[in-house]
């Protein structure tokens, strides 16, 4: 509750910071705002409540998810170092949009009413459409922004239609109302399908993933990282809430849809990632496959699904932020045709002069591949044990085969970086960026050894 208010005010204030002569101030002040939002979110700890005539609910779970997203945002923005070396950048606007879109993300994890879900998604998305095209001179970025906007708007339209159907069936927007007349059941089914389509678009689960490689590639890396972590986390919580409260009465109806999406996401995501030579496209397909993994936890009626999603989002966010961060720092040193070079072979020989970056990247990739000692392993394990408890061994077998495929492409950057060529010149990192990398990497390993630190919260 409080972070939404705090961010609304600070977002607007940040816009005016753009008038300052010293643009360098925008960065620390915005980070301060985000930290404040993070701090105030814990005021409601252990004090659950409903707000705005039962539109929003705040409890410990939503606070934790909110904190995960706020921390991700802080880490990502710190990696940007204030956009100081973006030539045509407008830092105040970017920071303001990030803060405002975070409001949407926070609403998506705490909604009690589908109207709030819709508002949340819109607030989050509109900010992102703009941020995707933040690099105005980059045609690819413009293309990505238009693509994202058109498809995203279409998806939200479908979502809204689904919400209308839901209303038609139960006569309320509240997600806990699901006592329905048999006669209206078809509306309920259609509503469920359409809402699911709208939401899975946001998390780029197959078959609604077509936008993600282009958008990931075209957007400035920093916003790609934001898109891959915060939006995903928010999207998953929204899907969980919708499926496990509004549509918990028709589990057998939506289970086949989720099963198909899991299978498709796992296979498409992993198989397509193998042939990518752009790192960002690779990460896009990897995000499709991780969407498949997280959806797998939702199949069947699992008590543990919420905890699994939280752990998986944290593990995935930590690794993804690190990977994109390394890409950002290294690609800055190799400009080709006026653009940072973002192919995988950028990392060739990275280990020789930049042992730190290569190590950090390797650990992030190991975590994404789900190798033990990293958080990614436990994420996978929780998903598998959830799926096993609902008896979905076919999906587990698909997931396992696809994990084996994933090893191939996640190790590509590692092998390239260990190559004994001259490779990349020494990349100078500011202490702040180093600190962020150390934090994300240590987080990955500590959660990999003591998963209970996070898992025991729920």
């Amino acid at each position, binding site marked *: 509750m409080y972070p939404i208010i705090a961010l609304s005010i600070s977002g607007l204030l940040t816009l005016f910071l753009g008038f300052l002569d010293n643009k360098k101030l925008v960065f620390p002040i915005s980070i301060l705002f985000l930290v404040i939002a993070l701090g105030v979110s814990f005021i409601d700890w252990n004090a659950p409540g409903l707000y705005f005539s039962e539109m929003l609910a705040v409890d410990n779970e939503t606070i934790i998810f909110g904190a995960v997203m706020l921390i991700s945002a802080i880490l990502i923005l710190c990696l940007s170092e204030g956009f100081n070396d973006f030539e045509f950048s407008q830092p105040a606007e970017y920071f303001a949009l990030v803060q405002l879109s975070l409001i949407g993300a926070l609403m998506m994890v705490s909604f009690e009413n589908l109207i709030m879900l819709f508002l949340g998604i819109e607030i989050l998305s509109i900010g992102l459409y703009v941020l995707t095209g933040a690099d105005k001179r980059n045609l690819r970025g413009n293309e990505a922004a238009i693509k994202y906007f058109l498809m995203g708007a279409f998806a939200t339209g479908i979502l809204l239609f689904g919400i209308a159907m839901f209303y038609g069936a139960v006569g309320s927007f509240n997600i806990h109302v699901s006592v329905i007349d048999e006669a209206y059941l078809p509306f309920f089914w259609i509503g469920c399908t359409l809402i699911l389509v709208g939401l899975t678009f946001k998390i780029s689960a197959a078959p609604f993933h077509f936008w993600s490689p282009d958008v990931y590639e075209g957007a400035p890396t920093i916003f790609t990282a934001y898109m891959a972590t915060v939006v995903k986390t928010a999207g998953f919580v929204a899907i969980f809430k919708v499926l496990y409260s509004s549509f918990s009465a028709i589990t057998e109806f939506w289970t086949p849809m989720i099963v198909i999406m899991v299978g498709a996401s796992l296979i498409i995501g992993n198989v397509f990632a193998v042939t990518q030579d752009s790192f960002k496209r690779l990460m896009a397909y990897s995000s499709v496959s991780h969407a498949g993994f997280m959806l797998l936890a939702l199949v069947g009626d699992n008590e543990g699904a919420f905890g699994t999603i939280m752990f998986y989002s944290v593990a995935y966010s930590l690794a993804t932020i690190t990977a994109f961060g390394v890409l950002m720092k290294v690609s800055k040193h190799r400009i080709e045709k006026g653009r940072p070079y973002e192919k995988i072979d950028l990392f060739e020989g990275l280990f020789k002069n930049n042992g730190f970056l290569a190590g950090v990247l390797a650990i992030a990739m190991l975590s994404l591949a789900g190798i033990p000692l990293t958080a990614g392993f436990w994420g996978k394990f929780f998903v598998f044990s959830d799926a*096993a408890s609902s008896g979905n061994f076919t999906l587990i077998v698909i997931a396992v085969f696809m994990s*084996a495929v994933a090893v191939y492409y996640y190790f590509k950057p590692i092998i390239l970086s260990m190559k004994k060529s001259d490779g990349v010149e020494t990349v100078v990192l500011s202490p702040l960026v180093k600190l962020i990398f150390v934090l994300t990497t240590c987080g990955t390993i500590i959660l990999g050894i003591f*998963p209970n630190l996070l898992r025991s919260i729920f």
Partner: protein
Amino acid sequence: MLILALILIPILGALLVFALGQNQLRSKQLALAVALVELVVFGLVFKEFSTTGNLLLQKDWLPDFGISFKFSIDGISVLLLALSTVLVPLVILSTFKVAYEKSNLLYALILLTEAALVGVFMAGDLFLFYFFFEIALVPVYFLGLIWGGANAAKATFKMLAYTIFGSLLMLVGLVYLYSKGQTADMEALKASMAFIPSNVQGILFSLFMLAFAIKMPIFPFHTWQADAYSESSTPATMLLAGLLSKMGVYGLIRIALPLAPMGAAEMGHMVMVLGVIGLIYGSIIAVKQDNLKRLIAYSSFAHMGLMAAAIFSGTLEGAQGAVFQMLAHGLNAIGLFFVVKIIAERTGGRSLSALGGLSQDAPWLSVSFMIILLGSVALPLTNGFVGEFLMLKGVFDHSKLLGIISGISIILGAVYLLRLFQKTMFGEKQNADVVIADVSGTEAVVLFVISALVILMGVFPNCILEISEPASQQLLDYMAQF
């Protein structure tokens, strides 16, 4: 408490070595010191084990899931712990004469591997086992990749892809068992084995078996091995051949047999056949090899086949022989790869046809090479003999035909190993002007320790066999119920 120290010392040691930076000498000495401290701690653990019997340590890990840090040590574990803690200092010592780049990372990775190995050999919880089993691969992969030869990237990746694929299949099996039994405790799961239908156990057994068959490796999952052994850096090869392959055998004893007993009873014979095929096939390929490292790799593959066959023979001799041979083979493999490394450094080649006459300049190298070789050939009074004899007896008792076929491998082993010795040590020197330096300093220490152990284990095998006997007997009694 000591058990915890056994895990933590190498991990903390690795961090310390890594953090202290690039000073070559300091990294080496520190790593050696850590490995020796670990050996001392193991000595204390062993003392406790020999007075009180099996040891156990259990701590919460994921209480909601019934997963715990459960370490238990029985007769078989303690022997493999001994193997790991003795061999790792030798591996570290064997690198003393080489100046590796980024040496702090190298030694940190070696110590991490030790931690993972120690963890695997003590794990009493399914997921703890899996956890360490997988972790052990990662540092060795990087050791092989970063300091390996020109084709190391390809060869080590092949190894990684094979083994991870196998491990993932095992994970499916483990998750299934866990979801049925609602516990991850291996001992507790054994009790519920009777309730799992035999066709399901067949699938479980295949899943586990694939993982371990790839790791060991046994026929037909061995294709990664020769490349990985020959292209990786020597420390990585030593760890792979000497210790990591033992994780596969240990996995058979700890997971594949007790946690899918009906499946094992049903398919055990098939595994034995595959093992014996691998034994003969590996020996024949080894006879034709020209590259020293590949030759030893194939000989190692052949030995692994016999171990698998012996474990499934269902006899006490077979099981005891396999346990003994794990130790003997680990020691001998590290010794052989070390000798090959010395030869390669001195002469600049690993090709049999380009070598010869080394014994003229390097008598001590030649003597220790001979002792280790005879251990591998299984000459009486060396460590190889005891293991091979017991294993062949076990296989023979199970099936006369397989026993007779396996017997041939002893002859083949003598053929390729003695040929190896003859072609390197005797004959004409290839380059008469160059004097090959004999072993000295740390090299001599390593070779002396290994040679002495080869003979000691061969003369007093009972010291070792009696440690593992109760555990082996217990396994057989348990298996006999199904």
